[in-house]
C-alpha cells in the first residue's frame, strides 16, 4: 500500500487512528502502551500484506528468527565463542535472504555473462521494503552483539519495531538503539499529532504534487530516441529528474516521520536540504541520512574506518560506496553510481580538498550540484550504456536544442521554478509576516490546499479514457 493511495488515506489510516486512540476496551494505564504497540503491529502486518500477500510470511519468519537470535545473544553472555558463531550465522542468514531475493537474477546474469553459461534465473519479484527492514534487523543484531543494546524480550515490541508501517517500505532506516526506549514509553499527544499531520501533508505534497508532476518531463525525454535529444533538453530533463528524486524520496520520509509522530514516535531526520550542500561530503550528510549513517556505523567503522592508514581508508571508502550503490538496486549502473561517489569522496579528501576550499561559496555549491546531477544520470538510467548515451546528449551530441526544447521549458517553467526554490530552501522562512495570527491562518490554508490538491491529483490520475473509436 502506498501512502499516496486512496486506500491508505481514506480507509487504512482512519481505521488505524481510531483503534490507536479510542479507548475501545479498558486497559490498565501501564498496559496502554502494549495495546498501542499491538494495534500498530497488527496494522503494519495488514499494511504489508496488502501489498505483498505472500511475502509477509518471509517477513514473519525473519522476525521470529532474529527475535530468538537476540535472546540467544543475550543468554550466551559468558560464551564468547558460541556467541560469535551465532552472531555470524545470523548476519549471514539475513544477508543471504536479502541477497537471494534482491540480487539472485543479477548474479545469475553476470555468471552467464562471465562464463558463457545459460542458466535461466527463476522470476522472483522483490519483496517490498526488504532492503529497509533487513537493514533494521541487522542494526538490531549487531547492536545486541556489541552490547550497545539489550535484547528485546517482548516479541510484540520487536515485531512492532521491524514492521512499523510508517517506515516499512521506504525508510528512514531506524536503528534499534534510537527507538528502543520509545517502544516502552513515548509521549503521545495532541501537539505531536498536529506536528505529525503537518509533516505528513508536506510529504504527501512533495510526492504527489511535486515529484509526480515534474517526473513526467524526464520520463518523456528518455522515451525518445536519445540521439536526437538536444543539449538543453537533456539538461532540463536531468534537472527535472534531480527534483523528482529528491521530492519523491524526501516526501516519503516526511510522510513516514509525520505518521510516526501521530503515533508518538520520533524518527531520525532523513533529508536536510541536500541540494544546498557545498561539498560531496556535505551532500551525503544531508541526503538519505539514515542510510549513510547505517553504512558508516555498520560497515565503514567496523572495517577500520580511517584509523588504519591512507591506503586502508581508501579501500574502505570504495567498499562502502560500492555497497551503497548496490543497495539501491541490483544493476551495474547503481554500482557505478556508488563507486562514482566513493572515488569523488576520496579525491575530495586527499587531492582536491584544499584546492576546492579556496573557491568562493557559490562556486562550491554549483560544483557540488553538477557532480550530483551527473550522478543522477547513472542512477536513473536503465543500463550503463543508457547513461553514457544520455551524457552524450548532455554534452551536445544531439545538437544544442531540438524542436521540443522551447515547449518543454515553457510548459514546465512555473512548476520547475517553484520546486527549485523549495528544494533550495528558499521557502523555509516564507512568508515573513509580522502578524502571527494572519501567518498561522495562511499556513493552515496552505496546508489544507496542499492536501486537497493531492486528493484531486490522485483521483484525476485515474482518468483513463477508453478510445475504442480511436481510429
Amino acid at each position, binding site marked *: 500500500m502506498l501512502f499516496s493511495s486512496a486506500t491508505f488515506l481514506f480507509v487504512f489510516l482512519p481505521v488505524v487512528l481510531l483503534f490507536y486512540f479510542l479507548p475501545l476496551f479498558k486497559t490498565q494505564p501501564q498496559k496502554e502502551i502494549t495495546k498501542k504497540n499491538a494495534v500498530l503491529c497488527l496494522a503494519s502486518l495488514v499494511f504489508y500484506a496488502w501489498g505483498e500477500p505472500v511475502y509477509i510470511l518471509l517477513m514473519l519468519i525473519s522476525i521470529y528468527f532474529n527475535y530468538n537470535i537476540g535472546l540467544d545473544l543475550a543468554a550466551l553472555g559468558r560464551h564468547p565463542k558460541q556467541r560469535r558463531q551465532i552472531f555470524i550465522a545470523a548476519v549471514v542468514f539475513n544477508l543471504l535472504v536479502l541477497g537471494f531475493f534482491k540480487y539472485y537474477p543479477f548474479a545469475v546474469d553476470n555468471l552467464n555473462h562471465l562464463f558463457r553459461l545459460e542458466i535461466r534465473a527463476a522470476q522472483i519479484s522483490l519483496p517490498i521494503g526488504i532492503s529497509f527492514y533487513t537493514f533494521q534487523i541487522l542494526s538490531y543484531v549487531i547492536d545486541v552483539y556489541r552490547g550497545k543494546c539489550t535484547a528485546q524480550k517482548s516479541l510484540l515490541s520487536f515485531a512492532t519495531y521491524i514492521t512499523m508501517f510508517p517506515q516499512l517500505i521506504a525508510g528512514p532506516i531506524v536503528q534499534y538503539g534510537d527507538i528502543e526506549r520509545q517502544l516502552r514509553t513515548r509521549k503521545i499527544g495532541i501537539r505531536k499529532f498536529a506536528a505529525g499531520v503537518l509533516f505528513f501533508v508536506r510529504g504527501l505534497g512533495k510526492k504527489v504534487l511535486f515529484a509526480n508532476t515534474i517526473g513526467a518531463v524526464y520520463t518523456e525525454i528518455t522515451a525518445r530516441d536519445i540521439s536526437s535529444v538536444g543539449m538543453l533538453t537533456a539538461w532540463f530533463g536531468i534537472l527535472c529528474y534531480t527534483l523528482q528524486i529528491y521530492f519523491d524520496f524526501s516526501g516519503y520520509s516526511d510522510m513516514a516521520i509525520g505518521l510516526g509522530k501521530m503515533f508518538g514516535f520520533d524518527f531520525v*531526520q532523513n533529508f536536510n536540504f541536500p541540494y544546498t550542500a557545498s561539498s560531496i561530503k556535505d551532500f551525503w550528510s544531508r541526503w538519505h541520512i539514515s542510510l549513510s549513517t547505517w553504512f558508516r556505523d555498520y560497515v565503514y567503522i567496523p572495517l577500520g574506518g580511517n584509523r588504519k592508514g591512507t591506503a586502508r581508508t581508501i579501500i574502505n571508502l570504495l567498499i562502502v560506496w560500492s555497497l551503497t550503490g548496490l543497495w539501491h538496486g541490483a544493476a551495474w549502473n547503481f554500482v557505478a553510481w556508488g563507486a562514482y561517489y566513493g572515488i569523488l569522496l576520496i579525491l575530495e579528501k586527499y587531492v582536491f580538498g584544499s584546492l576546492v576550499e579556496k573557491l568562493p561559496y557559490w562556486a562550491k555549491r554549483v560544483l557540488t550540484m553538477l557532480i550530483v546531477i551527473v550522478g543522477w544520470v547513472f542512477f536513473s538510467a536503465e543500463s550503463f550504456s543508457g547513461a553514457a548515451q544520455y551524457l552524450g546528449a548532455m554534452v551536445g551530441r544531439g545538437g544544442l536544442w531540438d524542436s521540443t526544447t522551447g515547449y518543454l521549458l515553457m510548459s514546465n517553467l512555473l512548476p520547475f521554478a517553484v520546486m527549485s526554490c523549495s528544494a533550495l530552501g528558499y521557502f523555509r522562512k516564507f512568508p515573513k509576516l509580522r502578524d502571527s495570527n494572519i501567518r498561522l491562518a495562511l499556513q*493552515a490554508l496552505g496546508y489544507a490546499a496542499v492536501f486537497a490538491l493531492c486528493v484531486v*491529483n490522485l*483521483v484525476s490520475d485515474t482518468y483513463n479514457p*477508453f478510445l475504442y473509436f480511436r*481510429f
Partner: protein
Amino acid sequence: MKLPTAKNHDLPTSGKRNYTTLVCLVIAVAFAAFLVLHTLLFLVTPDLELSESENRTLQQRPKLTLSALADGSYMKKFETYLTDQFPNRDGLISFHSFFATLTGHREENGVYLGRRGFLFEKQTPLDQDVLQKTTDAINTFLEREKHAKSAMILAPNSSYVLQKYMPYHLHEDDQKQQLNIVKKALHGDKFSWISVLKAYEKAEDPTTLYYRTDHHWTTFAAQRAFLSLSSKWELGAKSSQFTMEPVSDHFSGTLASSYGERKIRDVLYVCAPKKANGTYTVSYPTQNKVTASVFDSSKLEQKNQYEIFLGGNFDKIEITTTAESEDTLLLFKDSYANCMIPMLTPYFSKIVVIDPRYFSDSLNDVLEDTDFTHVLFVYNLNTFLADKSLSGVLAS
C-alpha cells in the same frame, strides 16, 4: 553518534514560538474531519456504472475471495473502486485539468492543448523499417494491378498544418519532409501522388481543415483532396456539384476525450452529391448488413458523432451504385476516408472499401470477384506511419 531526530521545531511553520495547544487541536481535528467527511460522502453517493467522458465502465465494489486476496487482485480492484467512485470525481478531474493549464501545462494523455481551443494529436515518429515494409507491399501490389489507375491521398496532421496554433510554438517533425519520403518510396506506371498540402493551399482559412476536438480532417479538407484526385483521374467533379450541410453543432471528438472534457464543440458537416444519381446499396458482408445510405444519422445521438460516415470502421464495405460509369474502385483506408467516400459514389459503379486494420479475409478473393479499374489509398500520416496491417493485407 546520535542523530538529530526530526523535532517539532524542524517544522518550517513554527517560527519563533511553538504552536499553542489550541492550534494543534484545530490541525488534528481538521485532518480527522477531512478523512471522515470523505468517508461519509463516499457512503452516501451512489456508485456509478459508467463514465461517459471516459467511455468505460467504472470499477464496482470488488468481491472478497481468498484467491483474489492471495494474488493481490482484490487490493488493486479495491483501490480502483475507491478512485473510480470518488465523490464528485468528474468535478475533481476537470478542476485538475484547469489547474494544470494554469501552471502552464499543455499536454494530457498524448494530446496537446493549443491556442484558440485547438487540440492536437501527438505525432507518430517515422520508423524506417515499418515504412519500408508498407511501401514495398504497396509497390508490389501496384505492379500486380498495373492496368488500374492508382493514387495515394496521405493527409498530414493538424499539428503541421495548423502549426501556429500549437502550444508555445512547438513544432514536431517536419511532416512535409515525411510526406516526401513516402512519395519517393512509391512508384507505379499509372500511380499518382495527390499532394494534400497543395490542395490545402487554396483554403482561405486553414482552421476549417481540422476539428478542434477531433483528430480527423474536416469534410472541407477531404473535399479539397477529393477535387485534386478528381482532376488527376479526370473524373470531372466540381465543388458546385456537392452540398455541404452541417448536421451537428456539438461534436466533441476523440482528442477532447483524451485531453479531458472541454467546453468547445465542433460543427460536423456532411458532403453529398447534389444530383442524387439514383440509388445505391451499402453492404457490410461480415456484419450481414445492408443499408441504403452512406450516412448513419443514428450515430449523431452518441458521443462519437464522426461515425455518421458509414457507421464507423468495418473490415470490408461494398457500395454498389447506379452511376453511369463502368469504373470500379478498390479503396484501402483508415477513418480519414470515411467522410470522403460519399463524394466518390457518383463516379464508380462499385466501390469496395477495405480497412486493413480489421480485414482478415483474403484480398485475392476480392480481386477475383471484381476487375478494378481504380485503386486508391486514403490515409492519415500518423496512422500510416504506425500501420503494420496494410502490408499483410496487400500480400494476402
